[in-house]
């Protein structure tokens, strides 16, 4: 396996864009990325697209060649990867595997989702299809409800409180307010977060990530060729993907995600680092409780200590290990299929010292954790300079 680097990044803002199509968003991110990396269209040897539910949200299927053609690619393999909210993390993982193993040199990965053209209850329905349709979804479960049950159990076993959950939302909104590309650039107070409209007890509207449109892209090549394209390449130190059962009730313990632990173990081993060496992270805060559980599963804090750590400022900008300096899914937005690659773009911005108002000082090693469903897929990626 050979070392691989990210040589270009590109993103659309995340938000509600009534006048923009899936193709429009995906090609904007892709073109910005190639330009950012100094990569010409004919140099790209393969294209991977991360997308969760384009066919349900906008009707179009066969999306990989559809977007590839929009980007001007001819003949090259174009592959769509679907892994719920980890779709583009997984697309990145497979692109990285292909470059690392020597099959291709230059590969473009785009993640995209166009969600806001559907009414809220239909969006809930489409998202729920990433759960177990015959069991939990038939009983009426939504994703907020599944994560609410995770939160309830975590509270029961470890004493996590609603204030701990709200602290995640307050932190991520404060960070997102400093991100010009974030969906919701609005700081919130602890009081607001605690008194939001109840969605699935104990989760309020402020515990839930946003329904957004958006796209993100990265371009990869072997590290030995990185200097041809970029003055600031970012090295992929390790990447790993793991799976678990889809239904929440089929997991032995819902206060921890087995797939996150397994992917993290592998990624740490490949990268030759441990949780203590991580300087900053983008974690999958689809719900506030998910960021707390991820911090524990990744070994940033001990089990049960995620909530108190966030409330004490451990993961704030300026804290010991800043988490979601971009605003996270909570404030930056969560265009499902774009999220995994979006996290990598945000880490790369920090590691290139291009993160503006939200720039942190220590950026040697960054970690991204992208979760699919209620933990049935997880991709962990570790970047370095």
């Amino acid at each position, binding site marked *: 396996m050979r070392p691989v680097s990210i040589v270009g990044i590109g993103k659309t803002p995340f938000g509600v864009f009534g006048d923009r199509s899936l193709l429009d968003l995906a090609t904007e991110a892709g073109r910005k990325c190639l330009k950012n990396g100094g990569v010409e269209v004919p140099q790209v040897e393969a294209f991977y697209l991360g997308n969760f539910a384009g066919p349900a949200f906008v009707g179009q299927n066969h999306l990989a060649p559809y977007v590839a053609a929009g980007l001007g690619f001819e003949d090259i393999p174009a592959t769509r990867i679907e892994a719920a909210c980890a779709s583009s993390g997984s697309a990145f993982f497979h692109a990285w595997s292909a470059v690392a193993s020597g099959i291709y040199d230059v590969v473009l990965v785009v993640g995209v989702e166009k969600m806001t053209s559907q009414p809220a209850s239909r969006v809930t*329905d489409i998202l729920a299809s990433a759960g177990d349709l015959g069991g939990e979804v038939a009983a009426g479960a939504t994703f907020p409800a599944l994560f*609410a049950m995770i939160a*309830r159990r975590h509270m029961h076993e470890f004493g996590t409180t609603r204030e701990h959950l709200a602290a995640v939302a307050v932190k991520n909104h404060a960070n997102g307010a400093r991100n010009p590309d974030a969906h919701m650039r609005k700081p919130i107070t602890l009081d607001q977060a605690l008194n939001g409209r109840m969605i699935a007890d104990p989760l309020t509207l402020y515990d839930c990530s946003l329904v957004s449109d958006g796209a993100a892209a990265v371009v990869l090549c072997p590290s030995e060729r990185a200097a041809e394209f970029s003055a600031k390449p970012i090295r992929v130190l390790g990447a790993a993907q793991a799976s678990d059962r889809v239904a929440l009730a089929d997991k032995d313990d819902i206060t921890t995600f087995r797939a996150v632990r397994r992917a993290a173990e592998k990624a740490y081993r490949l990268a030759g680092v441990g949780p203590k060496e991580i300087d900053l992270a983008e974690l999958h805060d689809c719900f506030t409780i998910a960021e707390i559980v991820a911090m524990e599963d990744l070994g940033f804090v001990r089990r049960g200590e995620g909530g108190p750590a966030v409330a004490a400022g451990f993961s704030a900008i300026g804290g010991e290990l800043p988490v979601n300096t971009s605003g996270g899914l909570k404030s930056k937005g969560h265009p499902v299929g774009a999220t995994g690659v979006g996290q990598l773009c945000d880490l790369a911005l920090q590691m290139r010292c291009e993160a503006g108002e939200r720039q942190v000082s220590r950026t040697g090693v960054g970690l991204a954790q992208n979760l699919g469903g209620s933990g049935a897929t997880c991709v962990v990626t570790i970047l370095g300079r």
Partner: protein
Amino acid sequence: MTVARCNGCGKTHAGAPRFCACGGEGFAAIEASGRGAVYSCTTLYAAAERFENDLPFQIAIVELEEGARLTARIAGAAVSIGDRVRLVEERGGVAFFSAA
């Protein structure tokens, strides 16, 4: 209500499992008592289109006395983690439990 017991390790599963984590593929259907305890639960105030008329409603992961877990609807008074519950009906493939 029946649950599937693995012929290999004896673990019970709700629904129709294809395999067990122990590697076993053979299962025996056993009659379940219909009694169990709440492993976790939530009350929903927003739902998918086809459940909007039921709002608000409570769902739970119920751990049956036989060990298997399933996601169920709660009928009647709200329950909390650890509460004993019993099966009251199965409708459209969904189990409804109430406080025991």
